[in-house]
Structures are given as C-alpha cells and as structure tokens.
C-alpha cells in the first residue's frame, strides 16, 4: 500500500451511524431542559476580573498589615520586585482564562509558566536582596507564611468564582494554575507588608506561599478529576 492509498483509506471514513433511538433520547433530554444562556464575556474582560481580584488581595493585605515592605525597598528594587510579580500575574491570568473555554488556543503552556516563574523568583531573591542572615529564621518567618497563606486562600476563593463560570477540560491544570495565581497574590501582599529584605527569608517564607497555593490547587484539581471520572450521567 502506497502513501496515496493510505491517505485515501484514512480520509474515506467509516459509515456506521449512531442508533436512531439513542439520538432521539439525546434530543429529548436536551430539548426538555433548554434555557437561554449568555455566552462568557471576552477574554480581556475575564483577565481584567482576575487581575482585579489580584489587586484586591494586595489592597486588603496592606490595609491589614501596613506598607512597611514597600517603604523598605529602594526604587530599583521596588520596580523589579513588583514588576516581576505583575508580569507573572498577567501571564497567569491569561493562562487561567485559557482553561475556562474548551478548544481555545493555548497561548501559554501552564507547565512552562509554572516552572519558568519558579526559576525566575528563585533567581530573583538572591540578586535583589543581599542579606543572607538566618538568625531566628523560623520565628520570624512563620508569621509571614501564615499571612501569605491567608491572603492566598482569599485569592483562591475569588479565583474560584471566576473559574466556575467556565467548563474545565483539565481540572488539574486549571486548579493548579489558580492556586499558583492565588499564591502569587499572597506573595505580592507579603512583599508590600513585610520589611525583612533577607534572601533566605523571602525564598522560604514568602515564596513558600506560592508552593502551598499550587499544591492546594493541584490537590483540589485531582479531587475534581476523580469526581468527574466517577460521575455517571
């Protein structure tokens, strides 16, 4: 069999139709529960909603914890540190919104984004913050982790309201991305609040919030996937 015959066989297609009775059953089930629905808003609107939630977390965080972190940074540090957070927040919001609509073009690959984002942050902390003091490392850090995790949890709840509007083709990916995005909101709020410019402190106790958010999101995603595979319609 040559290439042309192979191509013809593939493009001929099969001829077995679905059963008429089953089709009628499907038609009856669907038409009996028809109600008008509004299509989802455009992607820029959904991305704007996600970023508004991100900004709200930062605002609530500073209202509760103050802005000592922001004042402790010099201008260059502030621009680079929060510029990176903002860039990652935009990329995560785009990737998250892509998950809401089946068959949409994946502009950003979630795995690459999470891996690249983690590498960027790990490389950023020692470059921006030159203090490596580990005195009272746990006692000073645990409060930051608590604060960041609470902020991330609130961010996660807000993001959940957004992602539940869509239809998730990959709940695991979507939930992990959402957790990561929420964790990023928590870290940004921490950056504004915490004045400790210490690389190990920031790497472990601040960025740990992202790891916790991502892990929690992935766990929720796994449960969602498991439930979807158990469900019989």
């Amino acid at each position, binding site marked *: *069999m040559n*290439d042309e015959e*192979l*191509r013809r*066989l*593939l*493009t*001929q*297609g*099969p*001829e*077995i*139709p*679905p*059963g008429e009775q*089953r*089709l009628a*059953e*499907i*038609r009856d*089930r*669907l*038409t009996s*529960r*028809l*109600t*008008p*629905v*509004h*299509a*989802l808003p*455009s992607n820029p609107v959904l991305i704007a909603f996600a970023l508004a939630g991100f900004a709200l977390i930062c605002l609530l965080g500073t209202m509760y914890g103050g802005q000592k972190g922001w004042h402790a940074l010099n201008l260059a540090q502030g621009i680079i540190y929060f510029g990176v957070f903002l860039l990652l927040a935009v990329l995560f919001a785009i990737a998250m919104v892509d998950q*809401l*609509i*089946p*068959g*949409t*073009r*994946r502009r950003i*690959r979630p795995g690459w984004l999470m891996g690249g984002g983690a590498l960027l942050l790990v490389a950023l902390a020692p470059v921006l913050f030159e203090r490596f003091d580990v005195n009272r490392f746990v006692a000073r850090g645990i409060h930051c982790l608590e604060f960041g995790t609470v902020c991330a949890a609130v961010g996660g709840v807000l993001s959940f309201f957004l992602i539940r509007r*869509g*239809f998730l*083709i*990959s709940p695991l990916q979507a939930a992990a991305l959402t957790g990561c995005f929420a964790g990023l909101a928590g870290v940004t709020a921490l950056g504004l609040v915490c004045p400790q410019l210490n690389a190990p402190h920031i790497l472990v106790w601040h960025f740990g919030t992202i790891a916790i958010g991502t892990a929690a999101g992935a766990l929720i995603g796994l449960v969602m*996937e498991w439930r*979807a*595979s*158990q*469900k*019989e*319609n």
Partner: protein
Amino acid sequence: MSRYQQADSEATATLIARLSPQIFQFFLAQVRDRSLAEDLLQDFWLRVHKARHTYRASEPLLPWVFAIARRTKVDQYRRTRNIKSHEFQVEELPETVARAPEQKRTLALTELLRTLPAAQRETIWLLKVSGLSLEEVARATGSSVGAVKQRAHRAYEKLRKVFGERT
C-alpha cells in the same frame, strides 16, 4: 450553536443530528464498542449542554466540540480502569463479536489505527477522518501546532512501516 444558546429547540435538534455522526465515529474508533460509543455520545451531549455558555460565535466550533469529546473519553477511560481494578474474572467468556458486512471498512480503518499509540491515533483521526486543520487539532487537544505535526508525522511513519511489513 448561537440559536442553541438561545434555547431554540429546532436548532438544538439540527445540531445534534449534524454533529452526532462525526462524534460517534470518533468514540467508536477509540473504544471499538458500539454500545459504549453510544453511551459516550450521550454523556458528551450532556456535557455540551452544561458547557454551551462557553462557546463564542467568533471562535471555530469543531475544536470546542472535540475538546469536550476528548474529555468525555478520558473520563470514561478512567472510570473503566477503576471498575476493572475492582473486578476479577470468574470464568473465560466466549468471543461473541460478529462483524456485520457494512462494518468492514470501519474495521479496516480501526485495525489500521489500532497499531498506533492512543495520542497518535487520536491526532490522525481528527486530522484525516474528522477533517480538522492542524490549528483546530491543536486547540482541541490543548497542544501546540508543532506537537500535532510531530505526532501526525510519527503516526504516518509508523503506518507506512506497518503496511510495508504486511504487503
């Protein structure tokens, strides 16, 4: 599709009639069991119904539809795997599959595709049988156009080799 979103029952019936054969063939090629493929088709339409608000008229329909079909198939596979892991066979069952004459061509095609790994089989089916473009297959499978091209190329290479051995 837009009329389906506005609860037009006639448009819904037309959509079901037009899309079902293609989706059914897609399922049949993957599971090779008519009854299971019909169950999947029903499950697929219930999901489409839940997801209908996520379709936008400005976007192509087929990648949206096949992305949902793919998800339906994945969930069915996991469900079957879970059930199989809790079952044990009490006796040998006889082979009862009788092949109807009109199924010959489909069987030739599914026999051909059976030699491929699942991901390549799915890509070839979407590209060659369902007639989706590379971009549409990439959207439906959540991968890049490059990855789809690579899978299709590998599948074609393998099919050529299989036929070289058989002829």
